[in-house]
């Protein structure tokens, strides 16, 4: 009998365990990381799931608030010279790496010049104008630029450009360094354990440079492969935070009716995802810009958002996302109707001399779909139907990730492909790669797979990257958007709104524009 009592006591404790984190400070935050990351090396990979974990460990020079304003993190202040070619960062004093060594300007110089600029997927682009970094003292880093690089200051978050410890990387092979799976940073949480297939555990950094922070004792990222189970775990309170649609929209709209669960679309403006169709602009049925324009006209963007993405999204109105409005680069363009216009699409095809045959079919083609979930399959089914209405008969092809990547970016063996791209905090970082002639890079993923090439556009892109004057920059990007609205090597569909589903018990985790890719240093459980 005694044994039985102790057994039930333990079971009772287990249940109490789920509600045990109801304290002001301290406690454990369990959140969803989906899928399991390939490594923790955020300095050589921008893979999404790494971003969910690594920025709690590593920090950047800046963070950004929800309005895009700079929050100083490892930098205390910064100044840009009048010609825009020298950027000086004053670094924070008294910051220690998790192994006890001091953080200095040498770490910043080493990270940018020897790691990010060489091995990071986007670093060579973000820091391409940086020729050298001077470190006159241990808390000053002076970036010397070839040309002004206004976009660089938007790419200094912990996710985009994590600062890594020089003493652990210098002299090693950066790509296979031990640090990759055993991260050591300056951030609010220390890496403790990564149990493959289960979780990654981070504990509070007691020597964090911001006094009193972080509030949480422990942060655990859980890997749950099945979407319905993720929803159930959220519903049950076993996990408190799920970003990047880890809880799918179809469940999120149901869960948000509950008192203890909320949903937000904040925290994705620096990522800035846009759903789109890439075309083979070089050969095949879509080499003619008029056909691509007709497709853009026919699609009912609002219908896709409402019926496939549960109302989360904004119709695209240009090659640039409306998230570029605050920086003045966005301009609204024709040829992107929110509601489809079948009649004008047909008229456009007729005038281009692409006539229907006896069955009403003008073009037969295969539509490839990005293999990132059911939503994209449904998007494909809708496109098949609507483009069938204007005489473009599509067959859908859905493959696994490696096969699809190889087809689109290596073999160029496609004519039309549904995809989504991150436009990132500046067009130079996220948009140029899609259109420039220099971005036709066989075997490189997520660049100009359309193989569209236009020397006029190339010149505009080049001057847009180095123009320091904001008004002139606005003009340049207006022209760029005009050319892209006319030629449409890529048809933008809509601005995706990813969802973060969270338990209302979790507070203080929503102040950064990086959202789930931020540090959680101010997060606490109520």
């Amino acid at each position, binding site marked *: 009998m005694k044994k039985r009592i102790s057994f039930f006591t333990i079971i009772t404790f287990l249940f109490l365990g789920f509600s045990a984190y109801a304290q002001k400070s301290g406690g454990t935050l369990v959140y969803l990381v989906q899928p399991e990351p390939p490594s923790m090396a955020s300095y050589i990979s*921008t893979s999404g799931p790494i971003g969910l974990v690594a920025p709690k460990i590593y920090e950047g020079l800046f963070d950004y608030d929800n309005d895009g304003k700079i929050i100083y993190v490892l930098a205390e202040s910064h100044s840009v010279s009048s010609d825009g070619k020298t950027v000086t960062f004053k670094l924070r004093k008294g910051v220690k790496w998790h192994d006890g060594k001091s953080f200095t300007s040498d770490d910043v110089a080493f990270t940018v010049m020897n790691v990010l600029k060489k091995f990071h997927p986007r670093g*060579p682009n973000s820091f391409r104008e940086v020729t050298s970094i001077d470190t006159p003292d241990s808390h000053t880093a002076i970036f010397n630029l070839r040309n002004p690089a206004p976009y660089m200051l938007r790419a200094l978050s912990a996710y985009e450009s994590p600062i890594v410890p020089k003493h652990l990387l210098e002299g090693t092979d950066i790509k296979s360094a031990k640090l990759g799976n055993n991260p050591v940073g300056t951030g609010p949480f220390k890496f403790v354990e990564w149990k493959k*297939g289960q*979780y990654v555990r981070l504990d509070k950094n007691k020597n964090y440079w911001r006094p009193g922070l972080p509030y949480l004792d422990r942060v655990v990222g859980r890997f749950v492969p099945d979407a319905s189970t993720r929803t159930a775990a959220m519903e049950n309170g076993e996990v408190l935070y799920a970003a990047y649609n880890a809880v799918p929209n179809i469940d999120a709209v149901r869960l948000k009716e509950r008192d203890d669960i909320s949903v937000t679309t904040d925290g994705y403006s620096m990522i800035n995802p846009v759903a789109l169709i890439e075309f083979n602009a070089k050969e095949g049925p879509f080499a003619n810009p008029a056909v691509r324009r007709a497709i853009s006209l026919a699609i009912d963007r609002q219908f896709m958002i409402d019926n496939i993405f549960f109302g989360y999204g904004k119709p695209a109105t240009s090659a640039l996302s409306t998230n570029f409005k605050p920086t003045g680069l966005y301009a609204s363009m024709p040829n992107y109707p929110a509601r489809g216009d079948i009649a004008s699409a047909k008229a456009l095809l007729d005038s281009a001399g692409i006539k229907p045959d006896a069955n009403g079919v003008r073009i037969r083609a295969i539509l490839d779909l990005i293999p990132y979930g059911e939503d994209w399959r449904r998007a494909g089914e809708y496109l098949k139907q609507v483009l069938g209405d204007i005489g473009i008969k599509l067959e859908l092809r859905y493959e696994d990730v*490696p*096969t699809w990547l*190889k087809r689109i970016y290596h073999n160029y063996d496609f004519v039309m492909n549904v995809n989504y791209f991150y436009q990132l905090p500046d067009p130079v970082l996220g948009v140029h790669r899609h259109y420039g002639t220099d971005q036709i890079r066989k075997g*490189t993923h997520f660049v100009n797979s359309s193989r569209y090439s236009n020397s006029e556009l190339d010149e505009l892109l080049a001057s847009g990257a180095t123009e320091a004057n904001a008004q002139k920059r606005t003009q340049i990007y207006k022209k760029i958007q005009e050319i892209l609205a006319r030629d449409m090597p890529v048809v933008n569909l809509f601005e995706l709104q990813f969802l973060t589903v969270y338990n209302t018990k979790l507070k203080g985790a929503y102040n950064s524009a990086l959202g789930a890719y931020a540090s959680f240093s101010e997060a606490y459980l109520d």
Partner: protein
Amino acid sequence: MSRSTQILRYIIRRLFQAVPIVLAIIVLNFFLLNMAEGDAVDVLAGEAGSATPEYMAELRAKFGLDQPLPVQLLVYLKNIISLDLGYSFRHDMPVSVLIVDRFWPTLLLMVSTIILAVLFGILLGLLAAINLNTWKDAVISVFALITYATPLFWVGLMMIVVFSINLRWFPTSGMENIAAFYEGFDRFVDITHHLVLPTITLSLFYLALYTRLMRASMLEQYGQDYVVTARAKGLPERRITFGHVLRNALLPVVTMAGVQVGALIGGSVIVESVFAWPGLGMLAFESLFARDLNLLLGIFLISSVLVVVVNLIVDVIYCFLDPRIEVS
């Protein structure tokens, strides 16, 4: 020659026979897997965003993927012979470490499922056969039919909805409560608690199979001459059922269970995925999509060895269940 040495010699011979089979499995898998488009570097680079072709070529050289296929195969075979399963570049860990890490959860789930399914399957089949054509038989048969016909993932999700979300008796998923990080006996209880739903879900399907098999097998044995003889010499019905019929009726169930151990490793992908159970099935599934071929080949190798060993064990169990069966 005594019976035990005979059995031992038989086991040793069977093990030697298994070597060419396992080798053939390795070679076949190797070529099958390499027929898939794309490789581990494509996936890594795809996840990382934009990576330069030079960087990707460098990775391929590092992983040995730039070598011609026959060379890659020879290198792999050479490693296998020295009991080295190779290196998973994706996980940056030796394959053997990864597999051992995930083997225990799979074994735990597999053993508890087999025990539960075989025991209850035999019990229910026995009950149904004894109570042939009564309401008990009907209930058991309908139950078996329904559980057999229901998709596993749906059963799993319904279990979660009923027992985790509504009743809150069990956690939804995972193997341990990771907010708590228990140790010692508490951890054992915690893991057992997490094991309940996946085990029941996975065993329901097999339970149905064994129930039906056991029932049919019992009925067949009842019609045999030796039962008539036993009745004629006046044995009580209990003795006939438990002393003679049951023992003979068990043989097909044991055979089936043996065959299915192999299938269970693969079949548990669904249950592992629904309950986020960190087992081998999930690892294999993920490595396929990541084109982590070394890891995948390692898992296949271990599975094939496991199937060979389990079948051997089943053959040996036969001898004990039915002394008439001789090993040779």
